[in-house]
């Protein structure tokens, strides 16, 4: 490698880096759109989880350069559900043990979508897809990892995902109020979460309530994932 790189070449390298990132982001934007098509809540859950996770990451002091990978990883946490048959994914009743295994395999499927790609965004997406159902106390799935063994990005997304899921209307129950969801998360669910994540979330609940409402008022959002547009 020639170490004597001229100023023109630096410019070319910067342009090339921009082009690569632009292509990567365009691909991810399409994947986010596909995940939103497949989601049962018109895709709003995905967008809320992305923004709630981003804010929690900021409060946790995650460095700026890790925030964009986390944002996509949060939006794509459940992208592996494209691999799950609708008969199981949308089954109104209780799942059998076998069906539950299939359902839980969405973590692996999501991780596989980002296999053999070492970009920081792909790495974050793979990590979060695989680990977002792991619990801090080791009671989660698919690998029952616990505590700090669960990557930080997944611990952040887990808090955002659970809060948003609880405050969403489901076919089997109405939406919970923000207060009810928070008291549940800080009560009987507490041990599932990273203590620092859940404390910051609870201390700044006003931020998350405001964000939740803001995203619901946004309407169209696809372009928000395409930062080079």
């Amino acid at each position: 490698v020639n170490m004597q790189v001229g100023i023109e070449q630096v410019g070319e390298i910067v342009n090339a880096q921009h082009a690569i990132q632009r292509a990567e982001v365009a691909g991810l934007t399409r994947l986010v759109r596909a995940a939103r098509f497949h989601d049962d809540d018109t895709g709003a859950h995905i967008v809320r989880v992305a923004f709630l996770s981003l804010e929690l990451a900021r409060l946790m002091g995650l460095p700026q350069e890790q925030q964009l990978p986390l944002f996509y990883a949060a939006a794509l946490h459940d992208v592996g559900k494209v691999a799950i048959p609708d008969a199981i994914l949308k089954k109104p009743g209780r799942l059998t043990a076998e069906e539950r295994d299939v359902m839980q395999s969405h973590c692996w499927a999501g991780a596989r979508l980002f296999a053999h790609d070492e970009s920081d965004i792909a790495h974050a997406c793979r990590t979060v897809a695989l680990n977002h159902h792991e619990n801090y106390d080791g009671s989660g799935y698919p690998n029952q990892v616990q505590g700090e063994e669960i990557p930080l990005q997944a611990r952040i997304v887990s808090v955002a995902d659970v809060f948003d899921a609880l405050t969403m209307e489901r076919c089997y129950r109405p939406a919970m109020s923000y207060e009810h969801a928070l008291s549940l998360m800080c009560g009987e669910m507490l041990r599932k979460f990273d203590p620092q994540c859940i404390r910051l979330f609870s201390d700044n609940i006003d931020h998350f309530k405001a964000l939740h409402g803001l995203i619901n008022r946004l309407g169209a959002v696809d372009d928000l994932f395409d930062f080079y547009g």
Partner: protein
Amino acid sequence: MVMTKRVLVVDDQPELRKLVRLSLEMGGYEVFEADNGQRCLELLRVVKPGIVVMDAMMPGRYDGFQACQKVKAEYPHIKVIMLTARAQQADRELAAKVNSDAYVTKPFSPMALLDILEEVAK
């Protein structure tokens, strides 16, 4: 008189303008919008904002950096916050070169944007 609580948002993407608008309204700002650099320069005289939030990458006669340079040349007292695609060293240097007061890297949390506006408005 310049209104410090009045912000002009300049971006060609309507969805991003709306995100910025809702974020800033949450902080009590009065928000006006322009969809390109040229329109921004036309609106400044009328709107008299204290702060301009400007996307770096825009099609048209001026990109965000060029528009920022023009704003600062004509109205040095108006604070300009640049929205950049990624914290590229080159973008940061460019943002400094055109005399912007701060920059925010996309994606941003609405609260992060509000913090920066508050900082800049001091």
